[in-house]
């Protein structure tokens, strides 16, 4: 006698705690095994690109914050670099250094959320609280700098809205000193936890050729073992002056390119970011941070594609100028948008519970996917 079986379609989301926003995954199941995943996005679409065409270049900056809201500094930095390239202006040294410090602090804050929520998704709730405790200190540093904790409007084309607070350098050094031992603690709590390894190692293996063909960038690509980091491979700002390593996945707990590797790359990237911040603080030059800000931005006719290494991967801005004070076209190449495409490839053949583990390791921010 044979048992009658049939495929089942299961909707995960749009309201699901582990989707980190409003994402609907349409799973096709053969028993417990996934045969197909179709992501449905667009629930947070708010016409960013259309808005840009009706605003001046300066007015776009606060809107960029709201794309990847966990890494708003990075978004502003990418936009500022793109507009500066269109205008062909140089910014003072001090501005570049402060931008790097902010972008790296932001990277740590963003990775802390990624790591904390990843643990929480899989069932480890305590590391989540530890991560958010440390992230809070970074948000405090941002708050004393520009008054905002999440959406800063701090990095402007041509400069910065404020100079650093007099206490900023001291407080940042204190934070670095406190944070290093906390990273060790995090590793003991979560990274090398047997249960965590069992849930993530050998799950969602991403070979490097597939990753490149799918345009995957950031910690996901590095987790697959490829040393590719725009801070080194296509340097922007003053990153060429700093000495740092690029961690890649090594398959320590399973296969190269599994979820654990992607997770561990993020942990090690935080250490590298600390190194960069320390060097930048040591070399921080004096100067005026607002002197190069143009009063009126009216770039010549032209187009530019610039990209930076955001915590989630390559963030690209493609801006076309028609010679007026507002952009003719802004296209954002959001890293999460591109990275999310791989879900089907990664999940096929795994169990339903692994979808959560894989999605967490992809680390998406829906604000950026939907724009």
């Amino acid at each position: 006698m044979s048992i009658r079986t049939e495929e089942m379609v299961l909707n995960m989301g749009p309201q699901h705690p582990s989707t980190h926003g409003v994402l609907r995954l349409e799973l096709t199941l053969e028993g417990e095994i996934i045969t197909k995943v179709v992501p449905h996005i667009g629930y947070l679409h708010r016409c960013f690109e259309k808005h840009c065409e009706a605003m001046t270049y300066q007015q776009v900056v606060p809107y960029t914050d709201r794309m990847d809201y966990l890494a708003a500094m990075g978004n502003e930095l990418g936009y500022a670099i793109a507009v500066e390239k269109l205008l062909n202006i140089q910014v003072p040294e001090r501005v570049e250094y402060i931008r790097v410090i902010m972008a790296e602090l932001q990277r740590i804050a963003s990775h802390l959320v990624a790591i904390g929520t990843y643990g929480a998704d899989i069932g480890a709730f305590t590391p989540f609280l530890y991560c958010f405790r440390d992230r809070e200190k970074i948000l405090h540093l941002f708050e004393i700098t520009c008054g905002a904790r999440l959406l800063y409007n701090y990095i402007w084309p041509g400069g910065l809205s404020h100079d650093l607070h007099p206490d900023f350098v001291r407080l940042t050094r204190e934070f670095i000193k406190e944070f290093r031992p906390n990273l060790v603690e995090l590793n003991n709590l979560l990274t090398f936890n047997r249960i965590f390894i069992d849930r993530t190692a050998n799950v969602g293996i991403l070979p490097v050729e597939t990753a490149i063909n799918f345009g995957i960038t950031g910690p996901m690509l590095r987790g697959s073992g490829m040393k590719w980091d725009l801070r080194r491979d296509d340097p922007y700002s003053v990153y060429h002056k700093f000495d740092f390593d690029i961690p890649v996945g090594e398959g320590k707990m399973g296969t190269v390119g599994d979820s654990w590797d992607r997770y561990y790359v993020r942990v090690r990237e935080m250490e590298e970011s600390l190194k960069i911040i320390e060097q930048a603080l040591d070399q921080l030059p004096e100067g005026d941070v607002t002197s190069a800000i143009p009063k009126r931005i009216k770039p010549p006719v032209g187009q530019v594609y610039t990209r930076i290494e955001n915590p989630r991967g390559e963030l690209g801005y493609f801006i076309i100028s028609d010679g007026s004070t507002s952009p003719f076209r802004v296209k954002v190449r959001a890293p999460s948008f591109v990275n999310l495409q791989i879900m089907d490839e990664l999940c096929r053949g795994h169990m339903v519970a692994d979808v959560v583990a894989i999605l967490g390791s992809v680390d998406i921010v829906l604000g950026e996917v939907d724009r």
Partner: protein
Amino acid sequence: MKTIEEIFQILKDNFPNSELTLKTDIPTESFIIIPPFDVDKISLFLRDNSDLQFDLLMCLSGVDDFNGQKVKDENGNEIMQGGTLSVYYHLESTTLRHKLVLKTSTSRDNPEVVSVAEIWNSANWHEREAYDMFGIKFINHPDLRRILMPYDWEFGYPLRKDYQNPEFYQGMKVPY
């Protein structure tokens, strides 16, 4: 590592029947204009040629060139007739470390471009977005549906410059 002039020459030698133009007079970025129905052939060549190896599609963007004739429709709204829509491809080689920008233009009234989703998988969603926002139909695309807008959106393509908001969407008044 090859400059855009060298790449242009290689393409010209290999595709004598395609109409290729090199544009270098635009500040900050030069690009090669290719015909919309040869995009797949040229892309496959760019990816697989051992001197070029463009294995990474960084970005694919649709653009409304807004170069047609402005006319008034029966409601007095300004709409565009004729003109072109364009697609920009930003390519990079992770092994040889060079970059390339391609552009292709297609008519606004019947915009059709051959898909490259089979060549670079990352193009899949980018092309769906360009279809969603500009109405550019990508021939041979495996799954050409709307992506950011609702699947039942029937009021046109929002990023076109002459796009008009609908008055009602599913019984809700839109301009509030």
